């Protein structure tokens, strides 16, 4: 078994509205799995089903090969998008309470909390009430509570919202470290740059259906159009441009460069090799810039959603 979590054809309706339609995903062990989709696509419903907050109408969810049972709650850490804490409760008391709900004993919880509070340098917050903390500070507490019971599966829904860049980085590093220590992470966000940075697998849900999934690199390979971004320098710009346009499909390109180059996006045919293009170009002009255009997660997202 290489997949920690498998959802098999999961469907869920609310009245006449179908929130999920036969959605299947497989989250490999030790991966960071990006669960993407426009607002209202059904991501939260799927996450809630994994957390056993909502029951699916059809289909099954397996964790480590076993179908989900109440005891699996201990194996999952969930940071919902709609999150908060008891405002008038003290930080320490609250963390202990939430940790005990996840099945830790009081002493265990205290030990681990001490570790985390020291690590994030927030030891002096123990006796403060949540309402005395800033939003970002409360988010830190929330993060600790989510990971405290060392779950196999961590689910983060927009984990960076509310954090300044420094703290966002801190949390990102913590997530990566947890992954390195063996945890599997499901990561739902609209920030494509963090998907790019963190995820190795993604699934895209759109209008209740899964429309795309797999390794991020495989998907990118699938989406790339054999297009190359080139920057050329030549005394005879018009002639070179005309010759290239004659032979290849050319689009204008914009990128930053020191020289006042001819900037082009050149699309090759299915079979053509970049070497052919390069050798052709070197004959015509001086090549300063030659990069394959790799679609970003954002491009893939927008393209897929638009096409559906």
């Amino acid at each position: 078994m290489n997949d920690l979590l498998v959802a098999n054809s999961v469907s869920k309706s609310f009245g006449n509205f179908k929130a999920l339609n036969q959605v299947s995903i497989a989250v490999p062990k030790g991966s960071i799995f990006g669960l993407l989709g426009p607002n209202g696509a059904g991501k939260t419903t799927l996450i809630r089903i994994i957390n056993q907050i909502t029951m699916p109408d059809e289909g099954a969810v397996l964790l480590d090969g076993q179908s989900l049972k109440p005891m699996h709650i201990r194996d999952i850490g969930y940071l919902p998008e709609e999150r908060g804490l008891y405002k008038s409760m003290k930080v320490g008391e609250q963390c202990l309470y939430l940790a005990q709900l996840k099945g830790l004993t009081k002493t265990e919880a205290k030990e681990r909390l001490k570790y985390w509070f020291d690590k994030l340098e927030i030891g002096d917050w123990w006796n403060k009430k949540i309402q005395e903390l800033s939003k970002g500070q409360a988010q830190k507490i929330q993060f600790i509570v989510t990971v405290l019971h060392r779950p196999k599966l961590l689910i983060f829904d927009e984990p960076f919202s509310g954090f300044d860049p420094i703290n966002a980085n801190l949390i990102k590093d913590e997530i990566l470290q947890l992954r390195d220590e063996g945890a599997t992470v499901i990561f739902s966000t609209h920030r494509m740059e963090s998907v790019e940075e963190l995820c190795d697998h993604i699934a895209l849900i759109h209008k209740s259906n899964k429309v795309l999934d797999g390794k991020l690199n495989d998907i990118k390979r699938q989406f790339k159009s054999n297009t190359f971004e080139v920057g050329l320098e030549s005394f005879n710009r018009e002639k070179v441009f005309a010759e290239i346009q004659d032979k290849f499909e050319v689009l204008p390109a914009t990128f930053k460069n020191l020289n006042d180059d001819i900037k082009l996006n050149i699309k090759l045919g299915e079979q053509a090799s970049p070497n052919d293009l390069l050798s052709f170009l070197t004959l015509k002009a001086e090549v300063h810039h030659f990069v394959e255009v790799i679609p970003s997660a954002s491009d893939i997202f927008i393209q897929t959603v638009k096409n559906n």
Partner: protein
Amino acid sequence: MNHLPLIIKREYFTKVKNKSFIVMTFLSPLIMIALIAVVAYLSQLNNDKERTISILDETGYVKDVFQNTEFTTYTNLTGLSLEDAIALVKEKEDYGLLYVGKAKSLDDVSGHVKFYSEDSPSISVISSLEQQIEKRLKERKLELDGVTLAQIEASQTNIEIAQESFEGEKSSKIDNVVKLAFGGAAGYLLFMFIIIYGNMIMRSVIEEKTSRIIEVIISSVKPIQLMMGKIIGTSLAGVTQFVIWVILGGVLMIIVSTIFGIDLTQVQSPQQEMMNQAMQADGAQVMAENLIVAIGNLPMTNLIIAFLFFFIGGYLLYSSLYAAIGAAVDNETDTQQFMLPILMPLILAVYVGVFTVIEDPHGTVSTVFSFIPLTSPVVMLMRIPFGVPLWQQGLSLLLLIGTFIFAVWFAAKIYRVGILMYGKKPTYKELFKWLKY
């Protein structure tokens, strides 16, 4: 995994440690006692006031009936003219002047009695005067018919019907009063408890929604566990508060009445004098004895057990509905539309209890309402002191438990869906749809 004890503990301690809860717990009895003390003190003041009432009797029938009492002195102004008498009373600043004008005969007197005073006189003074005059005129009329005063005295009889059930249980009039007091207190206590702590549960559910912690909690515990934990924890806090109120109230009552010498039992005393007269006739001694017998006559074991069951059953039934309302809405202002259907049966129960149970504890209306689950806890608790057959109690309790289970199922459904719904005010139609999610 059973998290119920953990949740109960948290709910309990959050409530109990809450500042406003602590303030309310200790301040309410103080305020109540202070209020009662002030009212008692004021009415005592009123009662203690010495008043002088002047009598001008031109018929001579009634002038000598009035005996001075502790607080009231009567002066006889016979011989003066009405104008002079009024002037004199004004000058002396007496309480007022009772004037009995010239009458042709005894029958004619009633049309000629008047009371002159600066301010409008108190009802108790007037009725006491009326009673005394009526008594005297009646005696006079009887004397005219040839009956002597001694005969009148001798003809006075006082009937006290001794009541005994077929099983041989003795009871008296005062029994019914005691039964009413016990039943009424139990029913009313439940009513208050539901309103105060039901609301508290509702607010605590709303708080979890508005603080957005709910999804975090719900990913660790089942909604029904959270709901039950909330209900039980809040109820325990409520019981704690009630016990403190009772103890503190009792202690304060004793302190206030011993230190300040205010008799707190004399709060309702506009008719104090009349009451006292009535009491003297009956004999306070006998009353007290009857009271003790009456309390002894109550089916105490049944009362206590039934109280526990109906109180807990009724309270849980209503509080699960309150929890469901809390889950369905986003803020407290939206609760109004859902509160009405809950409050209606509750208020109805209290009305039925107060009006019909007193009239006829085993009549059709009382019996029917003591079976309908939403009203049965209050009505049944009021009926039980009058002796309700065990099968009726059992059946009613069974219905109550059945409804309670249904209500918890219903509330849990609403709760499960509602706690994750934000930003819209649900309609009844939507609530119904939630049941099928």
